[in-house]
């Protein structure tokens, strides 16, 4: 018997439990239970009315039996009776029984609801608590219907006890999760938000959970919770470790509440109000700082609670993805944990870094930990930790480290746990395809996959390698040679036979010149595997044989003999038999020409999303495997000022995968007609009469990104990527345009054209040569444009590209970022000179001013970088107000030089800027002001 039996012990129950525990066998236990069930049934059915205590005791026994794993089909009514007892102890057992054994018997639910209603109205906080717990535990729709309107009132009523408020909050949360449609939003919502300010930390804790869940679905309605949550969090993280009394847990102030508040903040973007934002940043910094302090206790509870808050803070930093400084600190902190002696922390660090890897600010920082992660893959003893390491390697992979990562994953695969092999195979296949510069490497990788883990290579993987080999003629010979060599192994995986059979059937002729791989040797090699293979593989090989008949007339008779043999012609399998008969007949009756037509090389496969990626997504759920590149692109689309420009997500081609990540969601609003009407084609080489396409969506944004920089990706869709590299000196410039074919199919009639309006043409002279009209799959062609600025100009030239891709006509237009500021030469000058010139340029035509709202975070360093990128000198210590930026430079044109001064005054409070330009020419002031205003 236990040492303590508080409250009223139910002796009968204890005896029964002892009996059960003393049963030597399962049979004995069942016998004892059946005896008890019979006893209880007879008591319940008996004539004598049971007193409350007995009823409670029997209900409790039934509950125990149920919890042992036996079915209970009676006693519900007695439990419901207990609910209306005035004795707390009986009521409590009644509610427990209902909570555990809820039955959707609607008759009973009505009775239960009735009892709950009475208790809620009783104004007795203990009874109200029991009733609320029951609703929260059962959470059925019927209960939501009955109480979803009532509970918010209890929650926000002034006279409700704290403990009841807590239960009401979480009870409402449970109902909202089951039946959101039944929980009405209303006046109470704003009052619930104010519970974040409540004095009682328990109330705040419960309310925060409720608010978080509600805010996820109704962010607008709960927007005010952000500032309240930040100030509450700030008070907690800055409090001394004893301030919060019983809410301090092993020297960590209110860890549960802190985690919940940080979760709530993850429902929103970074706060707009700079004061709130600043306060939050301080909180996050404090949390990161505390991680570096020596622990206040050696207990694992202390470090767990502290790190729980830290990890949640890091999640918030990653969610905001806007403060490079915090992201890098987070990454460093996780880097420390990667080598921590606690397995739990290593696991979480790997997991958390995975999400960090997809932020453009921290991707590089994450990559520096590659050796540690590879080491984890090799040395961790726990498979779940190794799994995290694989995930992280996958997430941090890019072109620079793909070869290393793929090699490490392949070598890990040899010893990997069976449970995760298939996933690793998929990941390797995806990375190898995605980052292949050299497709021979890709072919080698996939064949290695089949060699190492053939059983785990799904159809999608080997279908894909065949698709790629067929679509890329530069790798076909290599593939044929490699599979031929791989097939030499005495025991090779059936998947290799499939790939080998298919590839040799298509491209065996490319290696047939070598006497070591003559047609007959190829055939004999394949046929030596034939009898070991399953029916589908044999069927595939028969198709290879008939392809051989076409490719290699010299082995025709050998193959006909094989097809004619009884084991083929009379094969029990219908499919094999039919193929043998038909192929044999075809090889006999058809002329060489007909054979050549029927058995022609496979045409290229249409481009589509890799079926392997689809499979991995399916395996892991659509949200867990976002395509890294796409995710990065999506993120950077709204974060300007990053090191790399975000290629616009414009997709002018109907591709089946275009909308996978919702990237195509931007309405394809063409940015007005190109300024080409009546314009002159600088470069008339196009023989296509087609009209010029409207500007691609996103073109304006991308254009703006190039105002302060010269290199990067100007445009990208499913088919085509356009990159730029340019240099300018005085009034001359040269721009390299790179056109990359992202598909594996040729672009035909590829014709880029530069279009300038009449106006622009007199002020800006562009010279270029035509490019080769054919762009091979995966290839990149370059075009050079020589630029001369004759006089200042406002418009920008348009680059129109037309080509044919797989039978469809493609037409893309983008604005080419050649802007007036490119012809800036910076001028350094002292404060005195600056203001002297500033005063000289004071006539109203010379000054242009613009006041505008900040579109991006107001970061001093980024602003400086942009002004320098704009082309002017950045003059330090010139403006009396150190927060202001001033710059100076000269615009060079062929005809004249124009001195320019600029001044940018940020107003952090209002999140506004005032930009003033003074130059000796009105149009120049105007244009420079326009261009620069768009940058902040």
């Amino acid at each position, binding site marked *: 018997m*236990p*040492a*303590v*039996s*508080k*409250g*009223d012990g139910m002796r009968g129950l*204890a005896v029964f*439990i002892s009996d059960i525990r003393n049963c030597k066998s399962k049979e004995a236990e069942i016998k004892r239970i059946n005896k008890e069930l019979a006893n209880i049934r007879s008591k319940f059915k008996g004539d004598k009315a049971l007193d409350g205590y007995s009823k409670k005791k029997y209900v*409790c026994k039934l*509950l*125990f039996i149920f*919890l042992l794993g036996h079915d209970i089909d009676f006693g519900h009514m007695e439990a419901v009776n207990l609910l209306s007892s005035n*004795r*707390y*102890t009986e009521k*409590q057992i009644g509610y*427990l029984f209902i*909570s555990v054994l809820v039955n959707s018997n609607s008759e009973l639910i009505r009775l239960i609801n009735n009892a709950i209603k009475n208790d809620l109205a009783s104004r007795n906080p*203990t009874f109200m*608590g029991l009733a609320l*717990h029951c609703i*929260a*535990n059962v*959470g059925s729709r019927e209960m939501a219907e009955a109480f979803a309107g009532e509970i918010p009132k209890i929650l926000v009523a002034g006279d409700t006890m704290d*403990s009841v408020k*807590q*239960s009401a909050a*979480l*009870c409402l*949360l*449970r109902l909202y999760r089951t039946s959101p449609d039944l929980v009405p939003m209303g006046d109470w919502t704003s009052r619930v938000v104010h519970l974040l300010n409540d004095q009682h930390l*328990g109330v705040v*804790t*419960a309310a925060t*959970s409720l608010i978080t869940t509600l805010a996820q679905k109704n962010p607008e309605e709960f927007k005010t919770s952000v500032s309240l949550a930040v100030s509450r969090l700030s008070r907690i993280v800055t409090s001394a470790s004893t301030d919060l009394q*019983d*809410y301090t*847990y092993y020297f960590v102030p209110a*860890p*549960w509440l802190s*985690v*919940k508040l940080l*979760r709530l903040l*993850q429902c929103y973007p970074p706060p707009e109000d700079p004061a709130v934002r600043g306060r939050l940043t301080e909180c996050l910094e404090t949390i990161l700082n505390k991680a570096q302090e020596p622990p206040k206790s050696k207990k694992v509870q202390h470090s767990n*609670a502290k*790190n*729980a808050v830290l*990890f*949640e803070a890091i999640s918030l930093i990653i969610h905001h993805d806007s403060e490079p400084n915090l992201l890098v600190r987070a990454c460093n902190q996780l880097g420390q944990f990667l080598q921590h002696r606690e*397995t*739990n922390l290593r*696991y*979480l660090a790997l997991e958390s870094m995975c999400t960090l890897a997809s932020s453009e600010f921290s991707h590089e920082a994450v990559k520096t930990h590659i050796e540690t992660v590879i080491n984890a893959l090799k040395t961790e*003893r*726990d498979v*779940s*930790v190794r*799994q995290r390491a694989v995930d992280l390697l996958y997430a941090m992979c890019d072109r620079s480290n793909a070869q290393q990562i793929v090699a490490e994953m392949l070598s890990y695969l040899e010893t990997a746990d069976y449970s995760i092999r298939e996933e690793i195979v998929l990941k390797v296949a995806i990375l190898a395809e995605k980052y292949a510069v050299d497709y021979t490497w890709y072919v080698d990788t996939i064949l290695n996959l089949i060699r190492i883990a053939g059983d785990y290579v799904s159809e999608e993987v080997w279908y894909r390698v065949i698709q790629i080999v067929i679509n890329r003629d530069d790798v076909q010979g290599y593939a044929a040679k490699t599979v031929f060599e791989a097939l030499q192994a005495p025991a090779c995986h059936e998947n290799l036979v499939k790939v080998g059979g298919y590839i040799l059937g298509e491209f065996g002729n490319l290696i047939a010149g070598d006497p070591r791989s003559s047609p007959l040797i190829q055939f004999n090699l394949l046929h030596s595997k034939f009898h070991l293979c399953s029916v589908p593989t044999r069927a595939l090989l028969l198709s290879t044989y008939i392809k051989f008949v076409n490719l290699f007339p010299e082995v025709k008779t050998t193959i006909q003999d094989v097809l004619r043999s009884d084991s083929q012609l009379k094969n029990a399998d219908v499919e094999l038999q039919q193929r043998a008969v038909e192929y044999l007949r075809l090889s006999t009756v058809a002329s060489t020409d007909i054979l050549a037509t029927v058995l022609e090389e496979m045409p290229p496969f249409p481009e589509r999303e890799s079926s392997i990626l689809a499979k991995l997504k399916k395996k892991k*759920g659509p949200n867990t495997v976002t395509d890294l590149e796409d995710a990065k692109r999506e993120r950077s689309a709204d974060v300007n000022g990053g090191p790399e420009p975000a290629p616009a997500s414009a997709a002018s081609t109907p591709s089946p995968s275009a909308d996978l990540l919702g990237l195509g969601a931007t309405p394809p609003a063409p940015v007005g007609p190109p300024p080409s009407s009546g314009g002159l084609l600088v470069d008339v080489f196009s023989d296509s009469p087609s009209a010029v396409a409207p500007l691609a969506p996103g073109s304006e944004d991308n254009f703006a990104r190039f105002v302060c920089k010269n290199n990067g990706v100007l445009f990208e869709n499913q088919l085509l990527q356009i990159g730029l590299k340019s240099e300018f000196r005085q009034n001359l410039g040269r721009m390299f345009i790179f056109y990359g074919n992202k598909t594996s199919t040729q672009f035909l009639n590829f014709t880029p054209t530069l279009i300038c309006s009449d106006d622009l043409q007199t002020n800006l002279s562009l010279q270029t040569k035509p490019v080769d009209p054919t762009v091979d799959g995966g290839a990149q062609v370059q075009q050079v444009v020589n630029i001369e600025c004759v006089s200042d100009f406002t418009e920008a030239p348009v680059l129109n590209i037309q080509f044919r891709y797989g039978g469809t006509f493609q037409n893309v237009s983008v604005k080419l970022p050649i802007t007036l500021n490119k012809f800036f030469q910076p001028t350094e000058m002292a404060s005195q000179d600056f203001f002297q010139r500033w005063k000289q340029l004071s006539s109203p035509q010379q000054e242009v001013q613009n006041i505008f709202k900040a579109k991006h975070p107001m970061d001093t360093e980024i602003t400086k970088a942009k002004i320098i990128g704009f082309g002017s000198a950045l003059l330090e210590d010139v403006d009396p107000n150190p927060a202001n930026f001033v710059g100076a430079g000269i615009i060079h044109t062929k005809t004249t030089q124009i001195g320019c001064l600029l001044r940018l005054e940020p107003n952090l409070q209002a999140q506004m800027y005032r930009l003033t330009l003074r130059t000796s020419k009105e149009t120049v002031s105007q244009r420079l002001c326009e261009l620069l205003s768009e940058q902040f």
Partner: protein
Amino acid sequence: MQFMLLFSRQGKLRLQKWYVPLSDKEKKKITRELVQTVLARKPKMCSFLEWRDLKIVYKRYASLYFCCAIEDQDNELITLEIIHRYVELLDKYFGSVCELDIIFNFEKAYFILDEFLLGGEVQETSKKNVLKAIEQADLLQEVS
């Protein structure tokens, strides 16, 4: 949190609390699968594992395993401390709690859990406040 299970080293279920609606059959299946998975793990292994689309957080106290299933967004470490705080509450209430206390007073274990966690969320983290609520209820039982 989606559910919490307490089971012994022998795989006997001692307490089950479900915060999502599931059929009895499904509950039994999950329990069987998880008990097996967790018991198969070695002592020094990490306390977290992925299971279906959930995260499992577990910890062993003497002969009992405490095992919670949380969602993708939830915090593993704080869940580990939810388990610990619950153990502390049981310990304080029973006075160095052992598996037998939970077997013989299973209803109390449920009552304490309900004061601490409700609807799968932490309701009250203060040890004092939770125990005060339970002791008040005990007092009510004695006088009634």
